[in-house]
């Protein structure tokens, strides 16, 4: 059984911009590995290098943040789970944005990391507030489906299935899928190609 994820609380880091892809989150050269260990230090490596210290992940005011606040279509591109793995190892336990790419969001769920969406105006207000006062506590509450910050409480979007998996601690899908037992094989036997199309 995976652990139950009901809320993530902590300071936030604001990373503006839309369509930030997984190649930027973790450049491909760091995928030459057989474990996910050590990926944390390479999160956004090339962007950070080019920003010469002026990247949110290097901003001391955001140091130790556990919630990453992003724009639209965050995590698009490659299916590499190395992306959320590296952000998790960097210290993030939840993502708040306008929208997320589908495979990235699925990978986050599989790691017990919630991705929640806010309405554009709410997101802008949160980004502005956290930028002004990065020391404030931000709470992502999956039970209440909201996000609380200095400016109040905002309704948070999260897919029903994802929310349930996190709240019930079933986000590590393997165990849940195994519970189907023989019905996996029973179903498989009814699929014509699995049965060899009737060939002996």
């Amino acid at each position: 059984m995976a652990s139950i994820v009901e809320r993530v609380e902590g300071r936030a880091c604001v990373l503006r911009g839309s369509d930030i892809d997984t190649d930027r989150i973790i450049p491909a050269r760091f995928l030459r590995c057989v474990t996910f260990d050590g990926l944390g230090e390479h999160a956004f490596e090339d962007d950070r290098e080019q920003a010469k210290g002026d990247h949110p992940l290097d901003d001391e005011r955001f140091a130790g943040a556990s919630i990453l606040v992003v724009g639209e279509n965050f995590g698009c591109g490659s299916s590499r789970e190395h992306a959320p793995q590296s952000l998790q190892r960097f210290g993030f336990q939840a993502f708040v944005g306008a929208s997320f790419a589908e495979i990235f969001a699925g990978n986050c769920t599989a790691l017990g990391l919630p991705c929640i969406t806010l309405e554009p105006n709410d997101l802008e207000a949160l980004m502005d507030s956290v930028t002004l006062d990065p020391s404030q506590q931000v709470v992502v509450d999956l039970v209440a489906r909201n996000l609380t910050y200095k400016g109040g409480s905002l309704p948070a979007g999260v897919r029903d299935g994802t929310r349930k998996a996190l709240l019930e601690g079933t986000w590590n899908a393997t165990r849940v899928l195994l519970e189907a037992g023989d019905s996996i094989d029973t179903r498989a036997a009814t699929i014509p190609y699995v049965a060899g199309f009737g060939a002996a």
Partner: protein
Amino acid sequence: MPSPRSLFDKVWETHSVRELPDGQTQLFIGLHLVHEVTSPQAFAMLEEMKLGVRYPQRTFATIDHIIPTDSQLRPLADDLAEEMMVALERNCREHDITLFDSASGRQGVVHVIGPELGLTQPAMTVACGDSHTSTHGAFGAIAFGIGTSQVRDVLATQCLAMEKPKLRRIEVSGKLEGGVYAKDVILHIIRQLGVKGGVGFAYEYAGPVIEAMTMEERLTVCNMSIEGGARVGYINPDEVAFDYLRGREYAPTGEAWDTAVDWWRSMASEPGAPCDDLVTIAGENIPPTVTWGIHPGQSAGVNEPIPNLSDVPDADRPAFAEALEFMGFRPGQPIAGTKIDVAFIGSCTNGRISDLREAARVAKTGKVADGVRTLVVPGSQSVAREAEAEGLDQVFRAAGFDWREPGCSMCLAMNPDKLQGREVSASSSNRNFKGRQGSPTGRTLLMSPAMVAAAALRGEVTDVREVL
């Protein structure tokens, strides 16, 4: 009369094991493809959970991302790459999984070999730890790119927990002009619908332009579904798909073949099948297309300029400015005539025999321009053999192109093939993200393989119709 149904609905239902407590569907996966990058951690998780592989005969592996394209001799010069290769070999051996390695003669980019071996078939569910798995949808398979934890799920249970997406039918009407390729069609679709337009949708490509396409062209279209945000993209199976599959190594034979074709036909979307959204695109209006930005939706017809700021919706302006700054381009600048340093022909998008034939047709007309570095990388050993038998390698070599061994090569630069510094690459691959081709500041212009060949000859972005 039962109401008409889409292939998507029928495949979903046929493979559904049960509804999960969280509302998702437990979906049986008919074909699981594995490569060296996203699988080692999955096998390790399996071991940690003391689980085996449930249906080893439904998983096939190959080596593509890290393999060098100058020499595949072992041990690989890159220790990390060698370690990944050894891990895949060991995992396949321990779990009785068929591995198509270099010695097998069937190695290649995972999305090239699945179709060419006849592993990918209509109405299957397919999964692979790679976002371009949507490629396999060209046969009318429902194919998902997945992460490593989900690779573990499939290995352990042959199932995925999936939320059913909505369905968008994209009809491409009319016909294409000469010199316009499948790559242009999908780049145009992404330009129209945006890189996030497909989030939450499966794409069904239909209409006369799609129906007239060869199997390899359809593979190119479905391949880039994910670049438009859609995890799944497919085309209904028809005679084109059946003709392609007949006689392939893993295709059914004898009576089973006839049974299979009947079933595949019955699974295609029926006329009038419902969809959640319908988009129509006029084939005649699709130009040879080139990207000018840092995601595949930032593109223009080869004879159009890069947009001006006033043409860009307010919400997209920051991304527009960021893209032009990174690329070093000005608003309103023509894209044709942009100088290139590197020409890359290959990848799961455009590394098949027909891509090489089209590029060779262009290569035959001249010589690679001075100062342009080239890589022509067949998508698989089988593609390489076929190309060499036809003499395409000689055509490329005679024109000054570098003929390489199969692999993912410079599509993503996890191997020695990389851009240097600020080099500009004309590339037949699928992503123009910052740093994608191996240099953090390298710049990528996506286009069809014929357009890449034309750019290589002229040393600058060129309308291929001027060359042919």
